[in-house]
């Protein structure tokens, strides 16, 4: 039996199936488009599809899709994406203690050294909740490593990373409404942010163009960071903003240094706002980019091939550093006030 078909039949079948598939998963498109792994100039597809998906998600409420996805996740028992990685601190006690393991790297950038024990008093709902947000830098790699580290230590962690996004291009992806939505769903005691790699670009509105590096651009971006941090600090007691690690491309690196400075000065204005520098943890010398780092006389590849992202080994080191930074900062609060939650 011959099952061969002509090209016209084949093309029709492909196109119709494709369209049928999109129609059947309409409410999903918005999410899918946003989370596609794309580089900066490759955003054309999502630029075209974003308004379409926005329109169709009005036609067919996204709750239909989300509920079907929720049902699937519920049935198969998946927790990591939709829900929270809840780790019980103790079986039945109201108070529990999480021990800090010895840091993988010395915390040379911290003012005080990390204490051995961080006391967390249980409020009855499980543990201290942490929200991790950001672009692909908070995605698989560093994001997942940090999520793992924190949740294994008893924090309730929810990670929400959207690749190829930033605070600048609200027309493409609006982090401000995204964060409102996240806080409507749940309150978080602590929020950890890493964002900005996709923001070093011009910004065009129907009225004018903000050229990167100009005073207007700086003012605009500073306002964005300010507004974003304000929302975060209103809703969470602690806001940790992670700075950029050194980048391979010198031009890009200089941009990132400038933006990190902006993050630092903004975040520190807020009560509970802490900036975490990342310039030394994956470097031989502070601020210098390196792909390979020698740790305990062993060379490890710490950066991805693109010279921007962090490799698996690098993520392990950086997450250890971030974890130690955050917990030691929290425990300093513990020492001051007695326990973490009364501080919070």
């Amino acid at each position, binding site marked *: *039996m*011959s*099952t*061969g*078909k*002509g*090209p016209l*039949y*084949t*093309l*029709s*079948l*492909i*196109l*119709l*199936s*494709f*369209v*049928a*598939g*999109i129609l*059947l*998963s309409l409410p*999903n498109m918005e999410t*899918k*488009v946003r*989370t*596609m*792994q*794309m580089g900066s100039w*490759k955003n054309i*597809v999502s630029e075209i*599809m974003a308004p379409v998906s926005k329109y169709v998600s009005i036609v067919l409420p996204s709750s239909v*899709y989300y509920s*079907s*996805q929720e049902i*699937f996740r519920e049935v*198969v*028992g*998946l927790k*990591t*994406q939709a829900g929270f990685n809840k780790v019980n601190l103790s079986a039945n006690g109201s108070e529990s203690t999480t021990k800090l393991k010895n840091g993988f790297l010395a915390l040379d950038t911290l003012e005080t050294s990390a204490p051995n024990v961080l006391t967390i008093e249980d409020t009855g709902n499980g543990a201290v909740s942490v929200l991790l947000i950001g672009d692909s830098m908070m*995605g*698989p790699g560093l994001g997942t*490593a940090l999520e*793992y580290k924190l949740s*294994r230590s008893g924090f309730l962690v929810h990670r929400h990373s959207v*690749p190829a996004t930033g605070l600048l291009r609200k027309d493409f992806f609006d982090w401000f409404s995204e964060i409102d939505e996240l806080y409507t769903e749940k309150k978080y005691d602590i929020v950890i942010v890493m964002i900005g790699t996709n923001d070093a670009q011009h910004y065009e509105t129907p009225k004018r163009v903000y050229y990167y590096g100009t005073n207007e651009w700086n003012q605009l971006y500073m306002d964005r960071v300010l507004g974003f941090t304000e929302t975060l600090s209103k809703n969470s007691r602690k806001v940790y903003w992670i700075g950029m690690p050194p980048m*391979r491309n010198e031009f890009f690196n200089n941009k990132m240094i400038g933006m990190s400075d902006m993050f630092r000065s903004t975040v520190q204005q807020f009560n509970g706002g802490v900036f975490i520098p990342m310039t030394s943890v994956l470097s031989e010398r502070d601020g210098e980019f*390196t*792909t*390979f780092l*020698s740790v305990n*006389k*062993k*060379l490890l*590849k710490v950066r991805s*091939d693109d010279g921007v992202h962090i490799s*698996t080994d690098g993520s*392990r080191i950086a997450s250890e550093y971030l974890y130690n930074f955050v917990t030691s900062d929290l425990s300093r609060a513990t020492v001051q006030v007695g326990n973490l939650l009364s501080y919070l």
Partner: protein
Amino acid sequence: MLFPTAEFAIFFIAVFALYWFTPVPHTIKKVFLILASYFYYGYWDPRFVLLLIGYSAVSYFTALYIQGEPNALKQKRAITYSVGVFLLLLGFFKYYGFLFINFNSLLLKAGYIHTFPMIDVLLPVGISFFTFQAISYLVDVKRGTVQASRSAVDVFLYISFFPQLVAGPIVRSSVLLPQIQKVPERGEIQVYRAAVLIMGGLFKKMIIANYLSTEIVDHVFQNPSDYSQLDTLFAIYGYSIQIYCDFSAYSDMAIGVALLLGFKYPDNFDQPYRSLSLQEFWKRWHISLSSWLRDYLYIPLGGSRKGTLMTYRNLILTMLLGGLWHGASWNFIIWGALHGFGLAVERFLDPFIKPLRENRFGKILMGVIVFHFVSLAWVYFRASDFGTATTILFRVVYAQNPTELITPFIVLLLVVGVLINVLPSKIYPYIEEKISIMPIYAQVVLFGLLFALLAIMSPDGVMPFIYFQF
């Protein structure tokens, strides 16, 4: 541009329409396919398109020279130079980092603080695959099994045709060149076979491989000392199923995509985990690589023609180099060595094992042993270093942590993964036939539903295929 993305779908639909419907001579269409392949490849890094052009040009001219040169010695010299250049380039891109790391680590251990500066060498995606395609073409021309092509367009397309470009299968010139030369018949697109391959591939990759990886395998391999014996054991099984579903999915999709453009590739996987011996495993796993290694390495080394001891040596050497082909790391070398020694031992024990395979119980026993041996070797393939692999294997025997990763879903994924390997293979033509007799609107609804179901069930974002790194 990964296969399961909207970007690829748009790219492919455009290529498909232009290829089939533009009323231009066949040669122009082939040039168009070359350009489309360069665009596809350049999407990762445009600089490496030059590499493809270089490989194609060297292959084209060397093959013509070999064919026109009656002197065997000169033929040999030409092929040695060209293959040497290919291997040097492959070696530079793949092994520079490894040699650098080991050498500098030695310096650090010896107490030197100053080490050699690192040049950041980016690995061009797919270089291992197109290097092997190019070598097979030259060697086949030299052996006289393939005629050197007079058309540069044909050779350039053979080296860079996008479906198999970045992660195989390694398609021989004897298979692909004749298909490139002839004008495809417009009414002969095997659309249902392609649909089953592509949909099945998407399911294997986006559901089975993705969830096994994120829900159990990655946890255990990243933090081996945190999990129980059972978690660890299931993570090992999980990786065996994951790597099969990941890699065979890519091959299936590549074969399906090529079919839609009228090109027929041989199968690259044939239910490998139903093998009753390691030898059989290698006839079913990554067939295009294992047959390449057999024809261009094992047999030239002497194969099994030079006595028992030499056969063992050749098996071990071939598998060691096969391991090294995957990348410069001690893990791959150990993985290759395990398979090499495994094959040698199996050959040695053959008189004792043979009767076992003749009864039902013996067959099941052999199937289980082979699967476990292959899984054990995969631990070295997956683990980040030798120590992690050993820890994982040790923890299957002794670990005190409570079991926390095994859920009914994980077990279901593993069962489906095993079923794909043991169900009768004639099920696929059966499905194809059933779909082909449906009216077109029913087919559209069916594919649309499958598409939507995949969208709902798959995690957000697409993880890169494991074999992209090779």
